[in-house]
Every structure is written in C-alpha cells, then in structure tokens.
C-alpha cells in the first residue's frame, strides 16, 4: 500500500545520469581515505572518550519552549495572532468537519453503504464496488459502525484540506524552482517529526478536539500530496507542452488543459497516499480526544484487552483497504480514457440506483449478525504469552547484551564534537560534501538541544532496528520475487502489518519481551518491513528477463543468479528500500517510548503528559527530526555515490 511514492523526492534521484561515476583511481583513493579516517576516529575515541554524563533536566532549549507555551496560554484570547489568525483556522476546520459529518451521518447506514459501493463501482469497477460493500457491512458486523464513520469523517476532512493545500503547492513546487527548493526541507521535517511531538503543540494552538486532530493529521499527510503532485507535473512530457505552446496556449491554459489532465493519474495516486497516511495518524489523535476507532484502541489498551483493540484494528485495516483499492483502481482507470459521455451515463445510472436503494430500504441500520475477534484473539495471545516467553526472553537478552549495549556505550561515550567531526568526514567521503554540510550541523544540533545522551541511546536502538529490518525485509523480498505463490500469500499480510495500528500489537510484544528497547525494535520491524519487502521484490522483478536468461544460459546456478546478477542489478531498489526503512523505523521511536525503550521516545511521551516537561518533549521531537535528517542524508549520498559504479 504505502510504497515508494511516500518519498518521491528520493525516487527521482534514482535517475542514474545525474552523477558522474568516480573512476577506478578515485575509488581506490576513497578507500584509502576511509581507512585512514576510520583509524583516526577510533584513536580519537580512545583518547577523548567521556563517561557519558546524563543530560541535564533544564537545558536552554527546554526553557525556551516552555516560555512559548506560557505565552500562548496567556494570550490565547487577547493577541491578534490568535484573534484574527489561529482561532479562525480552528473555526473553519470545525465547520469543515461538521459539514463532512453532516453529510456522512445524514446518509444513514443504508445510504452510506450504498453510496460507497456506487462510488467504488463507478470509479474503480464492480469488483471494487463489491469490496467496498463487504467492507462497510463488516463495520456493522464488528459493532463498530459509529466509530468507523467518525474515523472516516476525520480522515476525509484531513484529506480534503491536504488536497486543497497540497495540489496547488505541488504544482508550484514543480513549476517554480525556488518554491520546490524551499519546500523540500520543510516537508522532510514534517514527515520525520514524530506525530506525538506535535500533538501537544496542536492542543496548545487549536485546543482539544476535532480541529486539532484534523490539522495534526493534515500536517502528517500533506507532504505526500505535495511531493507526488510535483512529481506528476514534473513528469508531463515536454513534447506535449511544446506542442501546446506552439499552438499558442497561455500559461494558464497549459496548466489547466495539458499539465493537470496529463498528471491526473499521478494526482489520484497522491490522494491515495494522503488517505493512507491520514488514516494511520487519525488513530493517534485519539489521544487528544478525537472520536473514532482510535478511542476503542486506546480504551482497550487501558484494559489490557488485546482482543478488543484487534477488532478496532481490523476495522481500520478494512477501511484502509477499501479506500486504497478505490483510489488505486480509479488511478489505473483514468489512464484508459473513456468518452466523457459514457462516463456521465455511468454516473447517472449509479445515482439512480442509489436513490432507488435508499428509497427501497429503510434508512435505519438493519440488524446485522454480530461478530467479534476479541475472545479467540485473547485466547491465542494468552497462550503465546505464556508459552513463548522463554525463547523470546533469551532472544531479547542476547541481542541487547551482544549488540545493543556495546553500540550504545560507544555512541554515548563519544564526545559530541568527535561525533560531529566523524559524521562530517565520513559524510563527505561517502556521500559528497553536500550531504556532509547538512548532516554535520544536524549532529551538532543534537548536542545543542541538550539531549546528547538520549539521542545517542535512541540512535543505537534505531541502527539495530534498521539492520534487522533490512535483513528480514530483503530475505522475504527475495523469496517473494522468486516464488509467485508465496508473494500472493504474503501480500495481504504485508498490507495488514502496515495499516494495523501499532498500538494493537504493542501489548503482546511487551508481554514477550518485557518493557525494553528490544520491544521497541520489534514494533519498528513489524511496521517497517512491509515497504522494504515490496521495494526489494519490485527491484528484483524489474531486472530485465533477457539478462536473467543470458545468465542462466551461461550456466549460472540459482544462487549465482541471485548474488551476481539480480541483487547487483536491483541495487537502486535496495537502496531506496533502505532509505524508506530508516524513515519508517524513526516513526516508531516514540511508540517505543510507550513500551520501555526510554530515551528520546520517552521524552516526547512525557512531554505530552507533564506540564513541566513540555519543553523537553518538544526538544526531543526535534532531536528525532535531526537524527532522521542525519541518517537520511548519509544514506541518500551513499546511494548517489555508489549506485552508479560501473
């Protein structure tokens, strides 16, 4: 579901002709330099190693954010910034939510089910229509109809806002160079900033409730809208544009009649990704009293009732699948152009059918047979928790003591300036000076925020999680690419793993692995493996069949084929997978804070809950962003420098 398109900024960098490959001699020199630098870093570490002092509880950055908080609290009803700005935004969003809600609730059960089915059938074909019908009926069967509708209302409101803001910005970003350049880092921050970290500021500005939830969701989702729209507009073939210009089109005509229509299917994809992201965020906004399925999950957590949380999780997965299939199939169908007349007839037919259905069946919800997964899931989870504990405990202890602890010790005891210098030096060497210029200040910023120790602890956990994610993801991806049946069997599992809210599987993880860093790693792996598997599988399948045949006819064994031909040729896809994996793992740092991983994730959670920790929590959120930028730039450069070696 959520695939590469998440970060199209990276996807474009795959075009190989941008970077000039270093020659053999250059490569040799790079290796020598790398060796020298490595020795120098180790020596410097041994000399200057610190005892890894704990962070202060009262850094300047924390006090600054606390000051901002107090100012907002005091001036909410007096400052013109609020009276004429923020408060109107809040009011406007509230109106939007209530309008959407009025629409959906007004349709009633029968009306909404029929409408979704009709939309699915017309936009995406009758199979999708049937899927939508089954999915929405399932909400009723699960006894979660009202909650599902609430979640849908919030998601749609956030998506509407995202499209209203994101599509024009995306067009601008593609057409005006400086807009694109300015937006890119802003979007990076918006995507890496953990959602928890801005929940507290959101309630500060927009108070508790739906408007804050919708705006927080939009902040999380709109980068995808902007990026993919920009990608679509940028990909419109220049010949078409030239032809239209030659015919005398004005700039507006070019946009309205050529660029937007030609980018239509990409823009529908942008909407698809926005919906998926919004849906994953809407659950978390339950923590600021947004209604919907998230509330069920949070409540079930308090009661330590995994089964009840699972029901709500299934409803979210179903909602995600229905919305995803409608939009992706709609995107596919916009390519096969049909005459506008035929389309109008279909819409009219669907409308008539809809009215007929609504008129024929009473608006009240019929008595649906009820079903809940709660009891069987609780039994199964209880059994697993009781019997697997010995093995999982040993696994946790092994990885913690063998890998995590040594890595953490080294990182924490490194003086901050040495770390920054090492990042700058290796960054410049591996990824080019541009990457180093961004990465080194990011590293220094961690110290500047006063969260050095926690940042390094988090970095250690994140690195281990990324390595494990890649190992598992690549292994599954390779299997899927080689066995079609396996791939079909695994796909729905991947969909579910990605859309199932992590809160649902956190508790069994805590039971098996204790409140620990490793539990956070497990949660991150579950969340980050699916996109890695998809990208690896696609990368391998994209290797031209002629190459594979040539290798086979030259007598390669399957193992040689994989290691010598397919994997090297799929390098671009693999590196993109690594980059995606990093972003996804970082997104789970805060969730890790909820299950005993401590460090930055816990700081963010605590900042959300305790008044005196507000500033620290916000600073920790920024520190996670800095870590993200650091890792992203280093791997992105890695990708440029190595991806095109002859």
């Amino acid at each position, binding site marked *: 579901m959520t695939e590469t398109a998440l970060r199209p900024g990276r996807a474009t960098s795959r075009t190989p002709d941008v970077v000039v490959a270093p020659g053999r001699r250059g490569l040799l020199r790079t290796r020598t330099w790398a060796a020298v630098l490595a020795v120098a870093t180790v020596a410097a570490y041994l000399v200057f190693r610190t005892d890894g002092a704990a962070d202060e509880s009262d850094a300047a950055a924390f006090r600054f954010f606390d000051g901002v908080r107090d100012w907002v609290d005091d001036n909410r009803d007096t400052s013109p910034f609020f009276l004429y700005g923020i408060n109107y935004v809040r009011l406007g969003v509230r109106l939007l939510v209530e309008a959407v*809600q009025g629409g959906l609730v007004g349709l009633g059960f029968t009306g909404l089910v029929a409408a979704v089915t009709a939309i699915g059938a017309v936009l995406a074909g009758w199979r999708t229509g049937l899927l939508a019908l089954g999915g929405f009926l399932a909400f009723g069967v699960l006894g979660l109809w009202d909650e599902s509708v609430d979640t849908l209302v919030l998601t749609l409101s956030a998506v509407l806002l995202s499209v209203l803001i994101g599509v024009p910005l995306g067009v601008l970003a593609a057409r005006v160079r400086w807009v694109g350049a300015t937006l890119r880092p802003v979007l990076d921050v918006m995507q890496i900033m953990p959602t928890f970290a801005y929940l507290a500021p959101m309630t500060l500005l927009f108070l508790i409730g739906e408007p804050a939830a919708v705006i927080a969701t939009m902040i999380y989702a709109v980068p995808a809208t902007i990026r993919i729209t920009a990608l679509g507009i940028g990909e419109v073939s220049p010949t078409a544009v030239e032809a239209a210009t030659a015919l005398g089109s004005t700039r507006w005509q070019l946009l309205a009649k050529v660029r937007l229509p030609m980018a239509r299917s990409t823009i529908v994809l942008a909407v698809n990704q926005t919906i998926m992201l919004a849906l994953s965020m809407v659950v978390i906004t339950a923590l600021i009293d947004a209604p919907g399925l998230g509330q069920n999950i949070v409540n079930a957590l308090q009661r330590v009732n995994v089964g009840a949380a699972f029901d709500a999780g299934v409803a979210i997965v179903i909602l995600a699948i229905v919305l995803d299939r409608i939009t992706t199939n709609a995107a596919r169908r916009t390519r096969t152009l049909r005459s506008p007349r035929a389309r109008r007839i279909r819409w009219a037919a669907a409308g008539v059918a809809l009215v007929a259905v609504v008129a024929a069946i009473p608006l009240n919800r019929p008595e649906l047979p009820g079903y809940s997964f709660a009891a069987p899931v609780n039994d199964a989870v209880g059994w697993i928790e009781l019997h697997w504990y010995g093995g999982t405990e040993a696994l946790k202890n092994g990885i913690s003591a063998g890998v995590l602890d040594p890595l953490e010790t080294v990182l924490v005891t490194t003086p901050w300036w040495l770390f920054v210098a090492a990042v700058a030096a290796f960054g410049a060497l591996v990824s080019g000076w541009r990457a180093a210029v961004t990465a080194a200040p990011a590293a220094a910023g961690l110290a500047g925020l006063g969260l050095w120790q926690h940042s390094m602890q988090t970095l250690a956990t994140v690195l281990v999680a990324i390595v494990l994610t890649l190992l598992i993801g690549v292994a599954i991806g390779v299997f899927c690419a080689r066995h079609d049946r396996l791939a079909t069997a695994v796909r729905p599992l991947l969909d579910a793993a990605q859309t199932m809210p992590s809160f649902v599987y956190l508790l069994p993880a805590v039971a098996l692995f204790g409140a620990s*860093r490793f539990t956070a790693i497990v949660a991150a792996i579950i969340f980050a493996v699916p996109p890695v598997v998809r990208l690896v599988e696609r990368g391998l399948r994209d290797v031209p069949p002629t190459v594979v045949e040539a290798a086979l006819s030259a007598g390669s064994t399957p193992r040689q084929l994989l290691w010598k031909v397919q994997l090297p040729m799929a390098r671009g896809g693999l590196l993109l997978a690594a980059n995606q994996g990093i972003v996804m793992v970082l997104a789970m740092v805060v969730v890790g804070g909820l299950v005993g991983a401590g460090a930055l994730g816990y700081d963010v959670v*605590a900042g959300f809950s305790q008044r005196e920790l507000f500033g620290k929590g916000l600073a920790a959120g920024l520190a996670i962003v800095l870590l993200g930028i650091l890792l992203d730039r280093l791997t992105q450069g890695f990708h440029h420098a190595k991806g095109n070696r002859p």
Partner: protein
Amino acid sequence: MRTLRTVVAAAVITTLAACGGATSGAGETEPSAGAKGKVNLAINPWVGYEANAAVIAYLLEKKMGYQVEKKELKEEIAWQGFATGEVDAIVENWGHPDLKKSYIEEKKVAVDVGPTGNQGVIGWYVPQWMVDKYPDITDWKNLDKYADLFKTSESKGKGQFLAGDPSFVTNDVALVANLKLNYTVVYSGSEAAIIKAAQQATAQTKPLLFYFYEPQWLFAQQKYVRVKLPEYKAGCDADPKKVACDYPDYVLDKIASKKFADGNSTAYQLIKNFTWTNEDQNLVSDYLTNQGMKADQAAEKWVNEHEATWKPWIPAGS
C-alpha cells in the same frame, strides 16, 4: 442537530468578524451554565477514573436528564480544558499541587470540589510469589540484597525498578538516588505496559519491582504487595529532588471549572455530593475490565444494586 450547529457556527463567524476577532472558545457549543444542559466530563486514562465517570455520567443522564460529553484526555490536557471551557469537571484527581496552583490560585479558572471518598495509594510493589519466597523483601533496606534478582537487559547491571506512565505522580528516580539503592529506573512509558509486565511477573514467576497504585482493577485478579519505604512525614516530599520517603496517602478529589461551579446547576451539585469507597470503585472497575462491560452497562449494574449509596448525591429538587 448537526446542521443547526453548523448554521450557528457560521453565524458566530460572521458576528465575530463584525466585532473583531475570534476567541479561543468560538464555535464551541456553550458549556452547561444553565440547568439541564450539557456536561463535559474529562476522562483521564485509567480505569478507576472511568469507574467514577461512568457512574456520574449515568446518573446525570438517566436520573437527571442531562447530556454528558466524555472527553478522553490526559490529566494535564484536561486541566488546560478548564481555561478554555472545554472541560467542566475532573472526577478523580491525584494531588497535582503544581496544577492546582496554576489553574486554581493563579488563573482562577478551576475550583476544588472536595474528595471522592477514595483513598489513593502509590508505592513500590512486588508480586505475591516473591513475598512468599523472600519474606523480608517488603522492607526497602533489604532491596539491595535482592538487586541481582531484578536484573534485566535494560538495567545496566543493577536491579531494575520499572516506573509507570509518565503522566502519573512519581518520585522514583530521586528515591533510588537518595536511598542509595543499587537499582536503575527503567521507564515503562505507559500504564498498559506496566500492567502487562505485572501480569507476566505473576504468570511466569519472574521477579519484578514496579510502580503501582491502588485502587486498581488488577488487584481483583492477582495479588501484589507494597514494599515499605521510609515513612512519609508531612513535607518530606517538598523538594522533588531530595525525596527520600514513601509516597503519601492521597485523598482523591474532584475539580470543576470555575464557570461550571458558579452556575451551581444540579449537575454541579451531584458531582460535589459524589463520594464512595474504594470497594465501590473496584467493583465498577471490575465490571469494566475483567467482565468486559461497557461504561453505561457497568454503571447501570452498580446503580441498580446500590441505591442507598447514590440516592443522597442527587440534589433536592432535580
């Protein structure tokens, strides 16, 4: 109803635009100043709180004809809601002198509405099986002797003390430091994580020393025993960094927004009159958790069986 609200909100926008700016509460349905209006109850994230709220909401709705809106909020955010008019009452508050100072004394947007009748206990706990096996473990002086038992992958070679949800009242880091215990505080990060860890400690007979509190529904299923720390004396927790004594017993109380209290509606009076015992709360919590009832079912069952308890709460003339 919805359309009506939209129209009203639209009208509010235009009026406000005419007379200059929107305040933070604009567009909200007015909180219940008058009789038979809407009551906004904050729901803090633990089951004991929900039990109080469930019964109060049930009585307000079913016996007194109010409309109750429950808002699921963490403690601090719920207090913020007093200032903005989004929360009318918090029905189980654990201490929080800092928040009381800020919102009751300085901003004057909230008032204390008296105790709920529940005794809150916060402390360090171990599972029952450990007390059976090591009887002297319940004295803090012996904790160091057993530190090795509590070692985990997270505790850096010392014993592990598992701390609770970050929004709860805690002195654990200071306690470990000031009592010079050979322990590391590990942050579980959530209420759910600590309950799960406690359940596993019993199920797998694994050692666990953890932050916990009563009244708590888990005690209906399994037994945990409090470790005695140096006795609490008034003022020994005045400086949070120098705390070296046990947690005090909390008189849990109710807080209401100033506006709600000044309106003195029958809803406010009911909340003011509400007091019950730990047994009452544990019973409703048990309905909510172990018996899997919804809030209104649990409240209905309790209300039907305990008329003598709740009758006096209902104000005269309602």
